[in-house]
């Protein structure tokens, strides 16, 4: 369903943009963010993820996992298998995300020491993922409707022509007071994003280090989040990326959580 919606939005955008251009109308901040949100990502995807956490003393910790995701219509299922470090090897984590507005994700975890799959309470979107500099919201698809978007300017960075959009949350209690995003014009990739804390101070910056066209889809394969206040960075690198490879439905079951990645 989500893919259909994305396809519909893309189709609408493709049909609409030329007319807007002809009319001489500039793109809005809202539209630019929607285009990033709706950038096609395929029906399924699998990859190995390496996450490197580096502190202010230059000490690094590495987490490695294999991840699979698939769109099942009204549900998007994602499963992660932890491979490193040794004390978390064999742990798996499955998330079911729903199209329904406001419905929390279902999350289940398999811990090899307990030998059972547990349904767990859904993480807050503001929680940090595995001790990294990314919150769950940073990693997921924050819906454009949750913020007010304003196009600030157009700017060249890293040799790419970008729209610069400022987004202010509609929610009062959100962890960021605002974000500023640099969006590559022709690819709708958010190349850079600055996050500001509740006091309005610059908190962290996300930089896309590498993106690739895989099976016709733009996939970010290396990004780095730099927490300026904590002097801590997290690198996320994807490898062995496959898009639309036809992952079987049974990959997203309790059986596979127990069996692990093979």
């Amino acid at each position: 369903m989500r893919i259909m919606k994305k396809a519909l939005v893309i189709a609408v955008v493709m049909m609409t943009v030329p007319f807007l251009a002809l009319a001489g109308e500039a793109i809005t901040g809202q539209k630019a963010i929607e285009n990033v949100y709706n950038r096609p990502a395929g029906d399924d995807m699998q990859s190995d993820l390496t996450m490197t956490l580096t502190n202010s003393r230059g000490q690094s910790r590495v987490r490695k996992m294999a991840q699979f995701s698939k769109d099942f219509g009204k549900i998007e299922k994602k499963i992660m298998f932890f491979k490193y470090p040794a004390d978390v090897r064999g742990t798996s984590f499955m998330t079911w995300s729903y199209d329904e507005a406001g419905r929390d994700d279902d999350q289940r975890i398999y811990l090899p020491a307990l030998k059972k799959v547990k349904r767990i309470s859904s993480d807050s979107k503001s929680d940090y993922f595995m001790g990294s500099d990314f919150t769950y919201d940073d990693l997921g698809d924050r819906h454009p409707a949750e913020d007010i978007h304003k196009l600030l300017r157009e700017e060249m960075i890293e040799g790419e022509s970008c729209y610069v959009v400022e987004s202010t949350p509609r929610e009062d209690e959100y962890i960021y007071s605002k974000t500023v995003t640099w969006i590559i014009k022709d690819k709708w990739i958010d190349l850079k994003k600055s996050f500001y804390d509740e006091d309005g101070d610059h908190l962290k910056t996300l930089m896309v280090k590498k993106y690739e066209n895989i099976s016709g889809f733009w996939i970010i394969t290396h990004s780095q989040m730099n927490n300026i206040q904590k002097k801590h960075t997290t690198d996320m690198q994807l490898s062995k990326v496959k898009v639309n490879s036809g992952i079987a439905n049974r990959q997203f079951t309790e059986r596979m959580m127990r069996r692990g990645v093979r």
Partner: protein
Amino acid sequence: MKKITLLVLAPLLLLLGGVPPAAAQSTTFTGYVRNYTAILLEGDQKYAILQDTLDLKIEHSRGKVDFKANPYINFFHNKETEIDLRQSYLDIMLDSADFRIGKQQIVWGKADGVFITDVISPKDLSEYLLPDFEEIRLGVQALKIDYYIGDHTIEFVWVPDFTPTKTPATDSIWYVKPEFSISPTYDYSKKEVPSNFGNSEIFLKFSAITSLIDFEIMAGSMWDDDPTMHINQSIDISTNQPVLRVTPEHHRLELVGGSFSTSIGGFVVRGESAFYNGKYFRSEDPALKDKVVEKGYTHSLLGLDFTIWNTRMSVQVIEQQIQDYDEQIVSDEKQDTVTILISRDFLRETLKLELFSYFDLNNAGSLLRPKMAYDLIDGFQILAGFNIFNGNKGNYGQYDGNDMVFAKVKYSF
């Protein structure tokens, strides 16, 4: 057993169509080494445990067949070294079914730290409930078949040979001497369950995960892991004194049960219940020959998990109830217990503080287990905590003198 295993394996190997010689193979060795030291807080601060462990997990896969073994060695300061296999089994994986044959730990149910439908693997209580759950469960030799229908699973388990609970040694701080009015003699002639096909244990479970609710329904025919103490009192003709003869005997139990978990807002609600038929209880009824009576018995739990202020909380309320109760039964009709877990991570998930507590509502007893775990580097953990028993009777109060501080240093590889 070997013949039966071969009979089971032969059609499986046919189904597999033979394992192709060029099938991808891999062997991995993982595990941990750990030092575990605990000191009693009362008296002359004896060591409750001084243990060094090597736990090795070996996995070899070849196509649709996996072999897993988990040997371990425990060195103790005051008792013999243990060398054993926690698990050792063969997995055969077909399109819609998995077969697991060998020594294995099997875990069912949704309860945490409470054994209701989770009854296939017996418990090692030689160190009470304090070891990690992976170490409390004893592996059983079994054949387990899982048949998958989408997100639903039908699981069948056959345990050909009975394994009882491993109880504390008589010189252990966890040993509780049975109380009798006069010193008894023991007759162990019925303690063993003869190893034959008729004495097998079988279990069946249907489980499902859905967007609304995850649930399991199970049934089993098993042996009570704990023996019933049959008590025979007579008069010794030569001395004219009363004589007490105690005969421990395991009895057959039939049980049905189920469990569920579901998400409501930011909460996870869990429940689990089982009815046991054939459970024996000690009775003071003078009309009873062996001072025991057979009654139905239920064991139920309701739990709630949630996160508040970045702190994970879990509360479980547990009730054990003897059905058709009569006042001559020594045990209470109902035994109520509450468990509370509070846990929070700090320093980017390298430091974890946790408090797990059991409260015995019948006897005003409790066990409080605060602990702190710090990952010095990835895979190298230092853990320290306390086990504090309160009360003077019941499951926890009886160990009031066993309060201890403990530390574990663990390196995983």
